[in-house]
């Protein structure tokens, strides 16, 4: 079946089986491999994308369910070489190591900034607990989130 949605600002159509997951449409069909697959069960957050401004896990979302929605992936965040303030905050704080969680982590912080613009450290930690990182120990990611919240 055909699913029509806005993907990174452009109208997009995917013709996929009903049971296809958004992560597979993005990665295999649209070749947007920035969205990462890890846990497959909506725990790790590596596949986090924005759907109408909300952070969702692409690994547990059917493509059919984003019909008519506005979807933003990590590829849609920067404007050419101009990084989004959240991306710049991650750069400034060296908030990535292996980088596999980073796209999902960046998208989660973007969602955090929209949902809780006044988030304090406890709120940041709680919010980001649905996005796992195995390298950094989270310290620099939290610092990056604080910088982004100040700037946005």
């Amino acid at each position: 079946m055909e699913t029509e949605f806005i993907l990174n600002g452009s109208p997009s159509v995917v013709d996929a089986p009903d049971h296809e997951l958004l992560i597979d449409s993005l990665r295999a069909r649209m070749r947007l491999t920035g969205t990462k697959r890890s846990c497959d069960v909506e725990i790790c957050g590596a596949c986090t994308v924005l759907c109408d401004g909300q952070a969702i896990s692409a690994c547990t979302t059917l493509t059919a369910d984003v019909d008519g929605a506005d979807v933003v992936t990590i590829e849609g965040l920067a404007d050419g070489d101009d990084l989004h303030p959240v991306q710049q905050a991650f750069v400034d704080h060296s908030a990535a190591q292996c980088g596999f969680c980073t796209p999902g982590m960046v998208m989660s912080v973007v969602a955090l900034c929209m949902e809780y613009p006044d988030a304090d450290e406890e709120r940041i930690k709680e919010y980001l607990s649905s996005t796992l990182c195995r390298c950094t120990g989270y310290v620099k990611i939290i610092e990056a989130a604080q910088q982004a919240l100040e700037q946005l």
Partner: protein
Amino acid sequence: MGPNEAGQRRQRKDIIDKVTGRARYASDLEVPGMTYARLVRSKVAHGAIKNIDTSAARALPGVICVVTAKDFEHLDMYYGESILDQPFLSVDRVRYIGEPFAGVVAETQEIADRAAELVRLEVEELPILENAAAAMHATTLIHPERPADLELANVCSRSVFEYGEVDRAMTEAVHIHEATYTFPAVFHYAMEPYAYLAEWSSAGLDMWAGTQQPHKVRADLARIFGVPHNQVRVRVPYVGGGYGSKGQAKYEPVTAAMALIAQRPVRLVNSINESFHTVTRHAAVVTMRTGIDADGRIIARDSQVVYDTGAYADKGPRVARKGAYRSAGPYSIPNSRAVGIAVYSNRVPAGAFRGFATPQVVWAGESAVDEIARHLGMSPLEYRKRFLTEQGKPFLGDDAPMDADLPQGLQLAADAIGWDEPRLPGRGRGVGSGVKDGGGGAARVEAEVHLHRDGSVEVVASTIELGQGPQTAYAQIAADGLHAHFEDVRVRAVDTWGQRFDPGTNASRSTISVGSAVYDAACQVYAQVCDAAEQVMGTSQDLRLDGPDVVAGGQRKPFVEVLAEVRRLQPDWLGSVSAIGVQDTTKGDGPLGYSSSFYEVGHSAVEVEVDPETGVLTLVKCASVADVGFAINPEGCEGQDEGSTVMGLGHTLYEELEFNGPELINPSLVDYRVPRAENLPHDFHTILLENRDGPGPFGSKGAGEGGTLAIAPAVANALEDATGVRIRDLPLTPERVWRALRAHEEALHSDVAEDQS
């Protein structure tokens, strides 16, 4: 002249790719004509294979081939680090639940997945040895072809290190402390599952792999497929986490084998469930006897460490050897005997994991020392500071002398949590120190530095960017050697074609080993440029490279012109603008066959709060001291230590692979709990100790594993400080703590009752 670039905070070379989603990992790669694979895994823990029925899978439209060991009878299918006991697909037997016995290649991933479910394995079940304890005393042998151990069954390896006279010293001890400590199997959870892409052509095998040891993988592939090294090219894109899990060959041989039969490029991307069924940290049982004299000094230690290495050796023999060796530290113990035994069982294989055998023995050793200090009525901090091996003094028998100031580092950690400040009720404080010899991967290595005609610099060094930051650190090191700008240096990704041999990105060895070779090469190129400048510009005073220009003695000239002129002036000018740097870390003759090139040190100090109603243990304060010698990239060093401390908090408080018999029952992130942002200690510090006492560039040492070493005993020691309860098993889950508190309370009550009666 001190370093200009090294020691500065610099933007990571890889970070723009990583924050924009442009970074490519093996699971993202595609080539024309690519096919998709799925492995079929055993649901039986131990069995002799009677038949594998692939007919239904083969009949599925879109399936290209279904392979089993029968397709590769002409090949030597086995691989391993020191013992070649693991076939890339089961031959004759399956030995653990999750072992791959067949592989499916199809036109799409979905077809491969469906076909994999149609493959049937028929076995004659064999007795199941569910863990090392069962296997050691069994009559069934998991690897009957392996030489027998004199005392125990299913021994994969046994290592003994002995110096002094332990038995005599024990008779002279005024107090002997003996206890057994257990450490569970835990999972690396590298977030990127194991992923590969293989293609054969007339030139040989082209392999893209998320690996930490591409040269080891090349050697294995060449041996298995009977081709020379120059026909195996292993390229490593970004790797989504390693921590030891992606060392030695993993699924490279089976991916290449499937591509050979399919005659098409094959991509194998495993799931996280499959990663859980690939390799773990060894579960260990550590029995430690420690003898002390009248002054409280440790005069003897006798340790036995049993590591459950699962169905295949992987790096188990080296883990058992190193663990035993390190169990005698970090104190100066004149008489020591340590036995490390790796035992086969029908569990998921165990191998390298950050800290490499050491968190298990430090868990025992630093718990035991705390118990001893308390027995003596001494402060655990003061006890350690008094008896930790002094800088420059002999260590571990006749290995290299201790290169670090251990008491200084431990005191820094203790100060950071306010050790001497009054304690609130319900809270306790604990410390621990861990030392890991930096001998792992001792090697003679080389690296190249090339200065291009436009002044840009290329570094060729075979260290994998796993996130630990070699692309950035090497650029800083090369910039210093060349007196060039960091921004003008680029470090190549690893490719075994045209790049120099390296034993592997592991053991915290890269900076001191490969990094030193990079510095050597950069200094050589700098000397060549100085020579050319003297001939062309008449000076090399304070020479530096400023983008495309050479600047010296107040003059500025484009490098491309300097190069052209020196060759015109002197057609036989021997200098080039490339150099090969060398570093050899195989020197000395310590007990391991060489002397440790440095000691990786991690000190932890924590303050905990314990809720007696629930057993929940909260880290109020946590400080980790990483003795890095000199921080080439300070932000990178902090990030490594923060990450390794939090990873250590995982096995301290949450993580355990749980088995029902031989079956792993929590192979999912729903059931296997890793630390989350909300679990960070409220007050969390990482401190870098920089005494410039390491062998790497500018006095640096290896780093990145230290945080995992001593965090668990520090927390258990703090728990005893808070509650009087000693727990010798990990993890310190609320249930375990609650039960221990209850048992302690009941024992106190019964003591009171006895006193009253």
